[in-house]
């Protein structure tokens, strides 16, 4: 699956320009599902990128685990979920030195969550690269209850925490790693537009 092309949007909406090798600098590579293919493509373009790489992969049912571990990175860890992998990711970020690179590939939820962890750990923005592959489902913060709903594929959707029906905005917080969801029937309770699939 090739890198996703998103339609133009507002300036807070993140863009994912694609991964570019920064050579053999120590790095952490985090991917989920089809994001593995972005890492495989990156290594194909510049094998040196693997020399000091630590890969964390969340397959989410995708079949790329074996190919990824066969690449020969310094470390390659497969995790059952991103939440399960976060302690390991935080530890790697806490040890990062000047020049450390973070490569993120896969869904917006994964990219957003790990990028937010990295920024709060003090990694500069220009050390974080990303490439979108796979599902275009979004990670949404409910502006009302503050709960995060993962993998939102429709607009509007129901907040997994407070149950309000929320519309999907393009306004995005890097600190939260999430888009903003706002009550769609606030002015006319109960009148909710038909749910549509989110498009890139």
């Amino acid at each position: 699956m090739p890198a996703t092309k998103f339609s133009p949007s507002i300036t807070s909406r993140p863009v994912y320009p694609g991964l570019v090798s920064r050579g053999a600098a120590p790095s952490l590579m985090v991917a989920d599902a089809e994001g593995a293919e972005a890492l495989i493509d990156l290594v194909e373009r510049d094998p040196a990128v693997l020399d000091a790489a630590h890969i964390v992969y969340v397959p989410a049912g995708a079949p790329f685990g074996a190919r990824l571990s066969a690449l020969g990175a310094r470390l390659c860890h497969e995790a059952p979920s991103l939440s399960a992998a976060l302690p390991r990711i935080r530890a790697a970020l806490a040890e990062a030195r000047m020049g450390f690179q973070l490569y993120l590939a896969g869904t917006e939820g994964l990219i957003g969550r790990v990028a937010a962890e990295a920024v709060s750990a003090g990694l500069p923005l220009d050390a974080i690269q990303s490439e979108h592959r796979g599902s275009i489902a979004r990670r949404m913060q409910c502006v009302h209850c503050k709960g995060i709903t993962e993998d939102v594929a429709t607009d509007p959707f129901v907040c997994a925490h407070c149950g309000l029906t929320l519309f999907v905005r393009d306004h995005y917080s890097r600190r939260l790693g999430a888009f903003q969801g706002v009550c769609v029937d606030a002015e006319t309770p109960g009148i909710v537009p038909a749910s549509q699939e989110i498009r890139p």
Partner: protein
Amino acid sequence: MTIRFNEETFRDDYTFYNSPQAIRRFPFPFDRDDYMYSVNMEPHAGGPEGSVFERRFDVDEHYVAEMRDRAITLDEDPLRCQSLPHMELAGWDLLELIMTCKAEDYPDLFELRRDGDQWHWINRPLGIEQRFTFLDAGTLPHGPMEYITRQTQGDFAVLDQREGNLWMDAGMVTSQADWSLDFDIGMNFFEWHAPVPKAHEMGIFQRALKFLMNVQQGAPSRRLNWTMTVNPRLDTSPENYHKWGPEKRELTPENVGAKQYLRVELQSFWRLPRSNALAFPIRCYLIALEDLVSVPKWGRRLHRVLRDLPDELAEYKGFAVNRPLIVDYLARFDDGAPTSPGIYPD
């Protein structure tokens, strides 16, 4: 100069009102009969006697009630006041700025005595007397920004300046025109303005950012911004949109004059001395249409501005659904006579 503070509410029974003097000094935001975005900055260096521009941090008849309303909002949602860890020094800068300005501009209401870093603050309207050590947060009941902005009308964004941009890294936001500090904290100037239509393409934000990054100590600037709000509600936050949203649909031709308010923000911009941060107070003034039209020039002009406003702006400002009702009401106060330049009553 003595101010009688109104006994009033900004929620539930909405007993808010403007006295005749408050109507007369209302900061009407339109200096002509049409409106489009602009970087409408001017020096914040006083203004006509009695106007809201006269003093650096205007204190008016709504002060005590607004502070009570802020406390209620903060009790319900403490995330309305946040400060990223590197912003504490800017909070002290802001506290010093407000305390010194208020003590100088309203000596009968506020008093500040300083002996080195031992400070003694007296706020008579709110009945507060506080001795504390400047730059020692442990000596105040809240962080410095929260402490002083619980005693100052208007929302406050405190912006860090770095990497050629301004970053919204702290704020006290309880009377906002539908934006979330909790969501926007940490964003840069372009990111937090991202949802505003048209203005990016017009280059407004690039020019505004350049201007703001060059604001100097002792030379604050100001501008007016505006929107429309049903009922005199300060907390028109996205957090509570599902609670106040239904009120927007309660307008009728009979009640529009009393329930529909013009909401004006007096925004000012202050360079802070120690942190080099930029303080950005956003002071909200509300006026019911039926009070506004008591100034004939304002009734005529608001009718023309709202009638001719581009749809996108009415949509963004959240009153597109009520625009026909509002324009019909205001048309009754527009006899087609020419209006004089400037914002003040004739």
